[in-house]
């Protein structure tokens, strides 16, 4: 009886301290891959270390600020696997921004305001005085711009361009 107790308590201790305290960040995650292109549509989020699942490893990680992989001087996220929008095919920065922020962009368009939406408008070169109109058009046409959950870069940008105020 006593032995079982010892084993149980020791295992709890062991599991907690060793696996939790010194479990390293998972190899396959980490910000190193955060800017890798993983798709052109919604939900293309890249997994970080799940902040709560290995609590103490998080502590150590935070202190070392370890990143795995090759997060160096990659400024771009890359859109080469995506179909390019017809109107803005050459605007790399716009395309990269949309691919990397599509969920937040959808959220802001539905709300009619927000930083991601403002950034999008700036990259679309919508004059400041026409932005309110642009935001409203986008909100009204939300269902057209984000026509399905499989929507991709090209159609989002092209559909948004279609409702942009005329100069």
């Amino acid at each position, binding site marked *: 009886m*006593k032995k079982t107790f010892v084993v149980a*308590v020791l295992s*709890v*201790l062991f599991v907690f*301290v060793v696996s*939790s305290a*010194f479990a*390293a960040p998972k*190899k396959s995650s980490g910000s*190193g891959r*955060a*800017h*890798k*292109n993983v798709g052109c549509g919604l*939900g293309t*989020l890249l*997994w970080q270390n*799940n*902040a*709560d699942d290995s609590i103490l490893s*998080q*502590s*150590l990680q*935070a*202190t*070392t*600020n*370890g990143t795995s*992989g*090759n*997060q*160096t*001087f*990659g*400024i771009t*996220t*890359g*859109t*080469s696997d995506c179909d390019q929008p017809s109107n803005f095919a050459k605007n790399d*920065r716009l395309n990269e*921004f949309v691919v*990397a*922020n599509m*969920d937040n962009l*959808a*959220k802001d368009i*539905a*709300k*009619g*305001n927000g*930083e*991601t939406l403002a*950034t999008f408008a*700036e*990259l679309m070169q919508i004059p400041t005085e026409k932005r309110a109109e642009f935001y409203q058009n986008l909100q009204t046409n*939300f*269902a057209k711009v*984000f026509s*399905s*959950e499989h929507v991709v870069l090209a159609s989002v940008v092209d559909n948004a361009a279609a409702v942009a105020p005329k100069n």
Partner: protein
Amino acid sequence: MFTKVYGASRPVYLFFAFLLLLSFVSPSRAVFAEDSAYREDLVKRAKEMRLFEDRYWDVLLHYKRSGSGKKSLITDPRFFLSPSGKKDPGAELDATIRGFFSEENKDEEPPRCRFIARYTWLKEKLGIDETRLPATACTKFNEALASVNPKSAVLIFPAAHLNSPASMFGHTLIRINGDFQSDLLSHAVSYAAITDDSNGFLYAFKGLFGLYKGYYSILPYYEKVKEYNDMERRDIWEYPLNLSEAETRKMLLHIWELKEIYSDYYFFDENCSYELLFLIEAARPSVDMTGPLRDRMRFWVIPPDTIRVVREDGLIEKVKYRPSQAMRVQMIASLMEDEDQKIVLAIVKKAVPPQAVPGMSISNERKARILDLATELLQYKYARRELEKDDYLKQFLAVLNVRSTLGTQANDLQSIPQPSQPEEGHRSGRMVLGTGYTTLGKSLFTEVGWRAAFHDVLDPDAGYIEGGQIDFFSLRGRYYFQENTLRLQSFRIVDIVSLSPRDMFFKPISWKVNTGFDRELFRDGQEHLIYRVNPGGGFAYQNRILGLYYGMVETDLNLSGGLKDDFALGFGASAGIIKKITDSWKIHLSARSIYYEAGDVHQSMKASLTQNFRISTNNSVSLSLWREKTFYEYQSEAMLGWNYYF
């Protein structure tokens, strides 16, 4: 773009291969006698001007005093043009000037482009006639410069997240703003250790002893915002630096020099926060932050401390707060009725379709807020892998579709007061001088305590997260008047507590772990030194009247030669309440009971009441009272202490 790491398609490679081929067939120009005379003349003049002793040369090469000479903190040999450059500023200066006349590429660029900050500075100091150097367009650098387009700089601090007090140690970054109005389109520069190790012991060990390579990186700021705000649930503080455009440009020149260059990463001192200060010094060499931080006889550098240093040097005037997704959820929820919050949960759990919201008999404002909060929660859950992608996408779009019919609502999140700024809190070191009385031996005592870092649950909360504690190297010594003896009372190597309240939307686990030497009562009725490992986990809740209250189950392992079988292993529980009575008065009432069933079998029960009164940012007074029963022996103690944070 600096380098397009990913996604270069085949024709691009072919193009570069072609260029490479061209560079081989084009005849390399010989260095003429005239050039070499000019070159040696510059080397001589630089020596006469003693530029190798110049402050800016130290900054650009990261030279620090080392013994009688100097040594660069950068390890990568590619950073130096002279083989002895790491330790010899003079030789490095000579080699650098000679390098400007070389057409040999260093990392795909001629040295004058690769080390553009050194070149720019020396050109100005020595009046170098560029027409007498081999011609180069510095194409790569100029592309990067055009892409980043440096105008101003911002110091970025992603603060701690709720359930990981240690992330307070966190990270600092520098953001370089260009011409864009949107901050998201600026670039973030950070310094981090690169690792693929999955063994945690190795990871901690290597981090402590500088066995990882640290690299500078530059990424679009929106990537960093997503990383910290959306995925790691960390609030971001942004401190615009009052650097001019010319100064910011100098910073970028130096960042370019550090591209793909490594240094040994030490997570206590030569870490992200310390290394980034070099960038600020490269922009404005008149401030010296890396020197004082290094000279202050401490072996650690903590991000909030670096923000304090930068602020003391007069570079910071303003601050901007960017709440994390988790914080946004809490902020939006704080503006809502309970019943509306329940609808949000029902939508997220698919019990109520979002399409039902417009038909509810509540104001449009409330409807919009319900859907806004549902959106944030869905994103949050997806980021934490609590939702599958397909489910998330369907729900997310359905909610947004309905939301888009409800018009624009005023952004009232700005009216919610933001938390106190991290650098406004107490400094992270602590000294305690106290006096007290113990019933054990009926003696008065004086206690002296020293803690390396960082914050405990009773320290004043400003700038920190309530309920979060992380103490590193906390040492307490006592002098007992009755027995006329001096004793080590405790030495906690690490002592972490994370009390993260559960609410309708978040269900975090609270936890604690501490290890180190403590004094415990033995069956002889005396206190003896033990080594302890004490982890625990449980739940915490926040109540407007009670404050933060918690309960945990824990195990406790005590090791000591004085115990039967040299150890005692127990299992038990603890509970407590932490209440802020006023802004500067905090109390912590707690009780803990452990049944040691293995080794030296016994029981231990403790109850304590501790209080902290904040006097100023870096001074506080604490009063603690506790009573315990261990091995049928009773002990009570009272102590009054003065805490000074350094």
